[in-house]
């Protein structure tokens, strides 16, 4: 996108009928690190790639629990994401208090979308620079929504946002028909493989990704790194070179027994790419 004379204010239309500031806000989402979501009839899984500014710092928090039955993954300006999560939590808890019942996720995303739309129609505001993947349950089952800075929202069977998300989307498009009836484990496995697709060459280990699940009686929660590393090892999802359907099973299972720190994960199967970046960052949680 190139600069032009219609892109200074969000309240200025271009002659082609575009609001450039809103489109630039959506660019910010594309620059954030990847987040993906997928759902079955009963469960929704969110996963994202954690980026840290340096080896010395902690990772960006990208997945937020909004209520027992709703969680979000964000991509883009994380500060905006944090503020929107606070709004969502507030709405959920107020609804619960008044109606003694969980807020249906479909209504929450509409409220969120309306909030985003306001920022596209005020000269003294700017659009939120964050895309949200909202995962939740309501009366009609499990749902996954994507909320855009433009104020649009869509429901998805599976979706990916952020940098290199196209690779993940391609994988998800191939596989999405199996998601509806997939088991919880298969759903998580697909999520991890989709995350791996967005990592160009980097080895997938639990220190660089976060996975969260909701559904089937389980409240929304983030899986701990040990569990994730176990799953990565069990599915033998290591380097970029392995095609998605290729699993080695037994050999990896023995390694999985040894526990699941990032260093162990690095020694488990060789991706053959030299793995210059192994070892946990000092602030790994």
């Amino acid at each position, binding site marked *: 996108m190139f600069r032009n004379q219609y892109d200074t204010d969000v309240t200025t239309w271009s002659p082609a009928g575009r609001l450039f500031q809103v489109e630039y806000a959506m660019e910010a989402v594309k620059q954030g690190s990847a987040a993906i979501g997928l759902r079955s009839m009963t469960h929704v899984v969110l996963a994202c790639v954690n980026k840290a500014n340096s080896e010395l710092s902690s990772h960006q928090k990208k997945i937020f629990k909004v209520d027992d039955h709703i969680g979000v993954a964000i991509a883009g300006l994380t500060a905006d994401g944090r503020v929107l999560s606070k709004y969502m939590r507030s709405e959920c808890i107020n609804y619960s*208090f*008044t*109606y*003694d*019942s969980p807020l*249906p996720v*479909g*209504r929450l995303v*509409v409220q969120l979308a309306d909030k985003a739309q306001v920022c596209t129609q005020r000269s003294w505001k700017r659009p939120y620079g964050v895309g949200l993947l909202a995962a939740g349950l*309501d*009366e*009609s089952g499990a749902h996954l929504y994507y909320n855009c800075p433009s104020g649009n929202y869509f429901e998805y069977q599976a979706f990916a946002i952020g940098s290199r998300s196209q690779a993940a989307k391609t994988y998800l498009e191939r596989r999405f028909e199996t998601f509806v009836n997939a088991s919880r484990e298969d759903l998580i496995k697909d999520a991890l493989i989709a995350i791996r697709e967005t990592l160009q060459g980097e080895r997938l280990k639990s220190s660089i990704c976060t996975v969260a699940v909701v559904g089937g009686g389980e409240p929304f929660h983030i899986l701990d790194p040990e569990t994730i590393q176990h799953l990565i090892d069990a599915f033998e999802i290591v380097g970029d070179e392995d095609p998605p359907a290729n699993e080695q099973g037994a050999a990896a299972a023995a390694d999985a027994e040894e526990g699941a720190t990032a260093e162990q994960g690095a020694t488990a199967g060789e991706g053959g790419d030299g793995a210059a970046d192994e070892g946990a960052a000092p602030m790994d949680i």
Partner: protein
Amino acid sequence: MIFVELLCRYPYVTGTSVIGIKYKDGILMAADMGGSYGSTLRYKSVERMKPIGKHSLLGASGEISDFQELLRYLDELILYDNMWDDGNSLGPKEVHSYLTRVMYNRRNKFNPLWNSLVLGGVKKGQKYLGTVVSMIGVHFEDNHVATGFGNHLARPILRDEWHENLSFEDGVKLLEKCMLVLLYRDRSAINKLQIAKITEEGTTISPPYSLKTFWGFSAFKNPTLGAEGSW
């Protein structure tokens, strides 16, 4: 000194007891159609039970105008709920919780809605019967509930004779038994009542009818027997 009447008026036109019970297919509720003006039984066609949305039924005793105000609040609530048009809807539990919040908030401002409410309903096979007691905001759920005099005269009968999975006919008989006692013993009761039922399919409120009473007791025949000089 804080008297509730000083700060929040008196009730003027009031309804008496409402009784509600769970039965096999949902909830049954009974209330008479009287609106008393103090000790005068002034209005005799007051409908004190109304359906709320698709899944709930509300019965009220106490100030009738406050009940009508509550119906307006609930009408708006259901309207906004329907406007979402998204497959979700407020069930009886949600409506009950909302009413509790409204009643409690009004009482905290010393401007109560002078009612005792019974809220019953069925949603997705789940039966719900809750009551908000008076203008204080106390609320609870049970298999059988009543307001006002119903608590003293009807609940004991229900405690003995209510059981799970009552048929519709048995449920109505049980409610009529309770309403008869109330008719004899509650001076603000009138002999014109309605029975309402709510099931998964929806709400039905019966047309008004009367109970058969018996006054042919021997003591009533010669009331002055034993009271010398009386007539």
